């Protein structure tokens, strides 16, 4: 009898869960909130829970309460796979977001596709959506679009010979592939192809080599702190040709680290960091300013593009559920694919059966660093 009483709360919780299941919509999230990629996963989780509250405050989706089931994969592929299993088998979500990193997304996306549950990834690798799996989407822009933005600018300036210096990690090497391909395809000449390690602290050797070769501009592809070291080494050895950075350093932290050496550098960035400078008619402007204000009020600190990916992933799923008028996975998938000209933080999304990212080079804006701040470069 005693034992039976002990089980009673469990049974009650179970029953309550069953009773609630009818009027909630469950969406899963597998994010790297801790571990090496926590600088991506933490703002993503913050943003998603903030947006979840906002959606529920205005009455939920289709009159039902939205519930996001979070799992932290600790930037570990195995834990991401386990979390995906739990979301599919135990939580029975109707759609999911994640993973934070490209590696984790590639590891879990097959499971969602096989189960017929739509997954919106927050990672950037092109392999996630090309070729497009019917159930896999992503909100982060592809490297290719950033490269395209840089090359368009270089062409307008009349630069012919481009030198590249990339970091030897996943981000840098994916960028290097895209750069080499598009530089050749765009009729440019690759003047130098230098590489540095993610933990390297001095890149004067690579830059000195570039300096001695004829070139018109340098493109550097990496995430902090490497590019900041390169910016400083560039000033140090007196390399005066223009330098482009990747969208990987589009945060105030980069300017802080590079200091004076950041002046005049050019990079393609999402609209978020220059929201205040956008023209008034820009479709994202209000959203970006509101997001920045709300995030800073709630969590303090700077907003980042990565938090923006979190916003876009949930906002696209919510939009799909509302337009479909249904919370069935297949209906959500079909509606996701039909999303057109929908403004998000990362850009204006237009999905199609062949394009499950929905962004283009237009969603990047070319910015220069002037007096320690971003400035939109006139096109």
């Amino acid at each position: 009898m005693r034992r039976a009483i002990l089980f009673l709360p469990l049974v009650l919780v179970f029953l309550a869960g069953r009773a609630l299941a009818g009027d909630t919509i469950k969406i899963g999230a597998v994010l790297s909130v801790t571990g090496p990629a926590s600088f991506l996963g933490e703002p993503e989780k913050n943003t998603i829970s903030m947006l979840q509250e906002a959606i529920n405050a205005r009455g939920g989706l289709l009159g039902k309460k939205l519930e996001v089931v979070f799992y932290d994969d600790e930037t570990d592929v195995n834990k991401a796979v386990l979390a995906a299993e739990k979301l599919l088998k135990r939580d029975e979500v109707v759609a999911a977001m994640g993973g934070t990193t490209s590696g984790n997304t590639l590891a879990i996306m097959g499971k969602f596709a096989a189960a017929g549950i739509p997954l919106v990834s927050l990672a950037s690798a092109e392999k996630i959506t090309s070729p497009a799996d019917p159930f896999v989407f992503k909100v982060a822009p592809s490297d290719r679009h950033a490269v395209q933005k840089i090359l368009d600018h270089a062409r307008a300036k009349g630069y012919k010979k481009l030198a590249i210096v990339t970091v030897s990690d996943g981000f840098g090497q994916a960028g290097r592939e895209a750069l080499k391909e598009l530089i050749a395809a765009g009729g440019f000449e690759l003047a130098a192809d230098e590489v540095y390690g993610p933990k390297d602290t001095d890149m004067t050797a690579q830059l000195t080599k570039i300096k001695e070769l004829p070139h018109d501009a340098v493109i550097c592809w990496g995430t902090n702190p490497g590019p900041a070291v390169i910016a400083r080494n560039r000033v140090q050895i007196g390399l005066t040709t223009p330098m482009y950075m990747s969208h990987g350093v589009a945060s105030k932290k980069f300017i802080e680290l590079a200091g004076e050496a950041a002046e005049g550098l050019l990079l393609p960035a999402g609209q978020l960091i220059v929201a205040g400078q956008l023209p008034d008619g820009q479709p994202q402007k209000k959203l970006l300013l509101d997001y920045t204000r709300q995030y800073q009020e709630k969590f303090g600190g700077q907003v980042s593009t990565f938090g923006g990916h979190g916003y876009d992933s949930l906002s696209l799923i919510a939009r799909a559920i509302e337009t479909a008028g249904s919370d069935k996975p297949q209906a959500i998938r079909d509606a996701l694919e039909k999303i057109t000209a929908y403004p998000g933080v990362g850009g204006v999304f237009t999905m199609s059966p062949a394009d499950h990212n929905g962004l283009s080079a237009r969603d990047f804006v070319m910015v220069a660093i002037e007096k320690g701040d971003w400035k939109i470069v006139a096109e």
Partner: protein
Amino acid sequence: MFGGLLQYVISGLTVGSAYGLTALGFTMIFNTTGVINFAQGEFVMLGGMMSVMLHQAGLNLPAAVILAVAAATAVGAAVERLAIRPVRRATAINLVIVTIGVSICLRGLAMLAWGKDTLRLPNFSGAAPLPVFGASLMPQSLWVLGVTLLILLGLRLFFSRSIHGKGMLACAYQRKAAYLVGISVERMAMLSFALSAATGAVGGAILAPLTMTSYDVGVMLGLKGFAAAVLGGLGNPFGAAAGGLILGVLESLGAGYVSSAYKDALAFIILLVLLFVKPSGLFGRKSAERV
């Protein structure tokens, strides 16, 4: 062309100084205790990170650096007292594993206390590069090279003139005999940890303006420093410093003239070849002398 070569050498020497100072720490501890201290890189990190933290807290630069080095020295002594001495009867390999544990622990604490961001320290004297025959030299590089030389000189005097230095050398030659003539081998071990922590911390602080610093810079520096110590001949402090400079210059020339993608591999290949040809390192004594 010549400007390029000179630039490679200058940046190689600057980075090499950091390797050298780390290698020096490895050597000092190895000599007195027979332990290879894999937490050496973390001492370098502590020097850099604490300088930045104290400077951000409002201290002026010299005071911040001096305090940071003093604090790192205390940490070094504490590591010996709390982690090494209680298990000193264990075999050398177990002690090495203890130091790996210490390094992970220090890194974790630094991450929790100061966060995961990369931080930078202002230059000691101006950021305008000086032109030298077509190459350019940062004033901070002069600081790095100068301070490294001063430390080497100081250590040479310490080991040849002071009673403590001689005591440490005695431990290096023959621990038991050192005991018998009344040298406290334990005190010497603690002193060696404190000294190598101080050396590492100075390296971390003078490099922070050039290379920036974060909680995990010690990993790479520890490895390269160890390689430099082996290159110079483990056990010889001046060989260690020279090994560091050679490793730095080789890396830089390799990146410049061969391929920057294989920069690290190149340095280690040269190290391997050297060890095949001359297993005791460039400046190492024949191992027969170190029975």
